[in-house]
């Protein structure tokens, strides 16, 4: 990966180089240009060998001396310049905060704002991430925190002038909330676990946390609380880099499975982050439609699918990286045929502690889906 944690200099340097190239162009009497990989759908590809979604080779360029591109070019430079300032001051903000910093009138008889809507500045942040090959967190732009972790994991967090050691085995009932940036000013002190268990729903995470499942099984217990955030996906990736197997546990419906696939292959929206947030080695524990055969009580605990579930299932059947696995095609087709789904929560049907027994049994028998 591109930058080492807590060392902002390389990112700063990249920003400066971007500016220097432009100044050089101008010095030579040429229109300054900005170039980056195209982020549109037509340039999103699945890398079969590596197992994740990334951008293709198509590039787009904008240049200042073109009437149609002049404003966007100026705006791009303004965003880059502002990010450089954040890095120098070592202060963080959100992309909304960035927008407000750049929402001002150009002045000097120009009755026009630099930015008037956040929808103008957001894509430029992504352009910069792609052009410089960095993540927005590396530019000191944070996203909302989402996701929670517990287990034998100790981290060191340098933030706001202080250094704190965080022991994820001592976070009680609430666990440690995963920040948006787990790279810059953040490092692993020790990771003492055998695998990572990712649980879709917070309620099930709380169940397993109360059962001290992570302690008994020596795993790191994470819940993205639904679709996983950038920070959560990045943390899972970093734990996988430590050679820990990653096992996912979601609802038995297209939505839950999609959460798994996003962790595994990354997503179209974040295709430009590619290998940084994808964990192709992740495996799926359940819940699966096949579980109804092994656990017959589940047959009575199915609920009806909603239209969105079916739509999502149909969509997933068009993704080549999913249809490459016949087990998944079968699962998806079963959902479409039976119009039924099973929630993780249903595993609490027989007794509350059954959730842990289910996970244990699956792992012991290596009953995973790819």
């Amino acid at each position, binding site marked *: 990966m591109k930058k080492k944690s807590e060392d902002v200099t390389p990112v700063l340097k990249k920003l400066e180089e971007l*500016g*220097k190239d432009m100044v050089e162009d101008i010095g030579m009497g040429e229109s300054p240009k900005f170039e980056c990989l195209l982020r549109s759908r037509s340039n999103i590809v699945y890398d079969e060998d590596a197992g994740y979604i990334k951008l293709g080779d198509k590039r787009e360029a904008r240049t*200042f*001396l073109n*009437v149609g591109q*002049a404003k966007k070019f100026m705006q791009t430079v303004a965003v880059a310049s502002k990010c450089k300032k954040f890095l120098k001051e070592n202060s963080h903000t959100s992309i909304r905060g960035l927008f407000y910093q750049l929402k001002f009138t150009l*002045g000097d008889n120009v009755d026009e704002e630099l930015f008037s809507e956040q929808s103008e500045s957001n894509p430029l942040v992504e352009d910069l991430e792609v052009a410089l090959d960095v993540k927005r967190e590396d530019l000191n732009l944070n996203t909302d925190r989402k996701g929670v972790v517990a287990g034998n994991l100790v981290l060191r967090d340098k933030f706001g002038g202080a250094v704190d050691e965080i022991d994820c085995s001592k976070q009680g009932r609430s666990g440690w909330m995963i920040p948006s940036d787990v790279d810059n000013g953040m490092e692993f002190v020790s990771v003492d676990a055998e695998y990572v268990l990712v649980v879709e729903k917070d309620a099930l995470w709380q169940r397993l946390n109360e059962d001290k499942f992570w302690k008994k099984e020596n795993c790191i217990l994470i819940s993205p609380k639904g679709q996983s955030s950038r920070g959560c996906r990045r943390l899972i990736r970093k734990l996988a880099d430590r050679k820990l197997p990653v096992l996912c546990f979601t609802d038995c419906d297209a939505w839950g499975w999609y959460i798994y696939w996003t962790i595994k292959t990354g997503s179209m929206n974040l295709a430009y982050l590619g290998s940084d947030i994808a964990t192709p080695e992740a495996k799926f524990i359940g819940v699966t439609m096949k579980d109804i055969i092994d656990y017959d009580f589940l047959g009575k605990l199915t609920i009806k699918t909603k239209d969105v579930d079916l739509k999502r299932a149909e969509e997933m059947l068009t993704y080549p990286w999913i249809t490459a696995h016949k087990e998944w095609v079968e699962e998806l087709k079963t959902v479409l045929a039976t119009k039924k789904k099973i929630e993780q929560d249903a595993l609490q049907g027989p007794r509350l502690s059954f959730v842990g027994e289910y996970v244990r049994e699956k792992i012991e028998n290596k009953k995973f889906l790819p």
Partner: protein
Amino acid sequence: MEEEREINGSEIFKEFKEYSVVEFFKKNRQMLGFAGKVRSLTTIVNEYTTNSLDACEEAGILPEVMVKIEELPDGHMKVTIQDNGPGIPPSHLGKAMGMMLAGTKFHRYMQQRGQQGIGGAGCTLFSQMTTGKSTKMRSGLGDGKVHECDMKIDVKSNQPVITNQMEFMGNFRGLRVESEFADVKYDKSEHGVYEYLKRTAMANPHAQITLMEPTGEKHVFQRASDKIPEKPAEIQPHPLGITTGDLVDIAHRTDSRKLSSFLVNTFSRMSSAKVEELAKLVPTVNFEKAPKDLKWPEAEAVVNAIKTLKWIAPPTDALRPIGSDQIEKALRNILAPEFVSVSNRKPKVFRGGVPFVVEAAIAYGGNSGRARNDEGRGGDIIRYANRVPLMFDAGGCAITEAVKNIDWKRYDIKDFESEPVTVFANFVSVHVPYTGTGKQAITNEEEIVEEIRYAIMEVARDMQVYLRGKIREMDKETKKKIIMRYVKELSMDLSDLAGESTPADIEKKLVNMIETKYEKIEGEAEEVEKVEEVKEGEENEKEE
């Protein structure tokens, strides 16, 4: 079906036996367009204006219509409408303006503006109900004599009550109606009289329309064309366009002695072989009986059976579109736009047999679009059925649906709600499938929506070419100015970002570059832009 049934003539006359006209009117007020204060006033002006325009058209006269609206001290509104039409002979005045449902349009099957015949008499009645006053008429046939009278309706017998009749010498030709109303309101909203007349003018470039507002302000929608529209042809109705109500109504008026011969004589494409087929489908109906005895359920069965049979499409030569050059003249005249394009499409058929034509146009810039609260102008949709503006119920209308279904970004309209665009669509058919008896929206049927959509896309594409060209053809000075706006900010940010050079130095170099090298680069940039445009054009074609 149920709603249409209520407006049907013979049914209405049956009701007269039990209720007075006033009761009937009160009961069906909404249905007749007299719901809401603003809407009521628009309906009144609509009734009078369409009468005037239709009369002029039939007589081959270039219409001049004057509408005056005054607010009286007691809160009543006085509406005066005067035209230069053929006038109404004194002997017919009462029937036309003082008897409900006795117009000349009600029994004829042709593409006309007003089709419900409640017309002027409905207004007379509404005036009388809300103010107790009579309506003043002046009519001149152009023969040197002018006739004046006051009109009321005897609500028990549905007969005109004419008072203060007098005749004098004069050169006045046309009709003048003066009437007072309560329970109505004048405003300049998109549903109001001003907008209604403006839209009427846009679909009737041969008419000169003047509006005097209650404030005293005068608006003249100038005539833009001297071409009087062709008279619509009277045709036999096609079986697929008929409703149960129509069938009962016509059957009860016919001279034919048998139902079978009545059907053959009345409808286009109806042969005796077809009648036999029908008879087999509905054995409960006796096709030998007198048409006058046709009952509602029987008619309903026949109409349903008709829908299951195959029919030769009706002739399309009865359709009377406004015509693309007429529409263009009208839009240029009223909106003074930068750009106008009008579609030119062949008739299509809906419900398996009813022919229709869609005329779509788009206007950009100038006074196109609707004024938004101090935010410039936003996209506007103006809807017509047979040239009559549809002012209400926009949400449920096929035209609105078609506009919504268009991806405007593809035509370089970033946001339809915030660009100076007027989309004009006229649905032309002998049988307009309205959503309700208010006749303010066209039903959302797929084949209709699609055709309207294609027509609008056709003109939107022309507009896109214009908008693209507009950017390309901006003179060098303008282009230079646009880029210059951003030089200062860029210079500061770039100097900060690079950590070298000074804003002043970068600015100087950029300005230099723009001044001296601009033309050369502009030439190159133009080439690129042209190539892109061709590519997108191809994509558009493919997607359609």
